[in-house]
């Protein structure tokens, strides 16, 4: 066993030994992956996995290093880039990935990517 493998084993034992917790958070992440376009909130996520809201939030952050909300936003932005690149309009994209208003989608998209959705779409389709 290399020094790296022994270190990994040590981390696994000290941080990742609770299989039940790990399976719960992986389940929540999969749930977000499969339902990112719907109106997701903490209540819904915790109900889906039968854990309390705050426990779920704490667990998710502990294992993924970010909150379910942050993960969901990143997922939606990632998906919206795909849709815009493939020719969808900004409005179509906004609602397809689960945002409720064009204004909040555009602002968030610009904060996360540095470009507005329309600029992003122009560049992406121009490159093709």
């Amino acid at each position, binding site marked *: 066993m*290399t*020094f*790296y*493998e022994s270190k*990994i084993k040590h*981390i*696994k034992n000290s*941080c*990742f030994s609770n299989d039940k917790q*790990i399976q719960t*958070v*992986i389940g929540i*992440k999969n749930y977000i992956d499969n339902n990112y376009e719907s109106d997701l909130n903490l209540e819904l996520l915790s109900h889906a996995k039968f854990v309390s809201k705050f426990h779920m939030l704490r667990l998710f952050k502990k*294992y*993924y290093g970010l909150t379910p909300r942050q993960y969901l936003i990143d997922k939606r932005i990632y998906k919206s880039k795909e849709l815009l690149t493939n020719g969808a309009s900004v409005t179509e994209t906004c609602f397809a990935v689960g945002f409720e208003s064009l204004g909040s989608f555009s602002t968030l998209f610009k904060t996360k990517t540095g470009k507005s959705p329309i600029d992003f779409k122009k560049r992406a389709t121009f490159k093709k």
Partner: protein
Amino acid sequence: MKVTLISIPVRDQEKALKFYTEKLGFLKKKDAPLGGGNRWLTLVSPEWQDGPELLLEPAPNHFEPCKVFQDALMEAGFPYTQFDVENVDAEYDRLIKLGVEFSVKPTEMGTAKFAVFNDTCGNNIQIVEML
């Protein structure tokens, strides 16, 4: 400030270019001469061509401490860096068929699955899938 580049030390840039493009599947983006046979050589992911570039840097040939550090990491099995993949098992199977040598087979750790291979240019590289 923007993060646009990660550098990987390599002993032979041409060999590294072949391994990273032909086996791993990266695309060459920039290739400019820097004198003495050295090049500014960068690669990108095919599915993220405007994403961060990977610089194949001949540092171990010109700066001894870099070589010492690289050798120590290799000896201890530590990856120099890591790349995200969709599916570690599938990538492992694909690379094994191409003759790539793994020091760590696909292994789960918490919410991640990873494997480690030898890039034949002096480094261990880790591939990771988020579960």
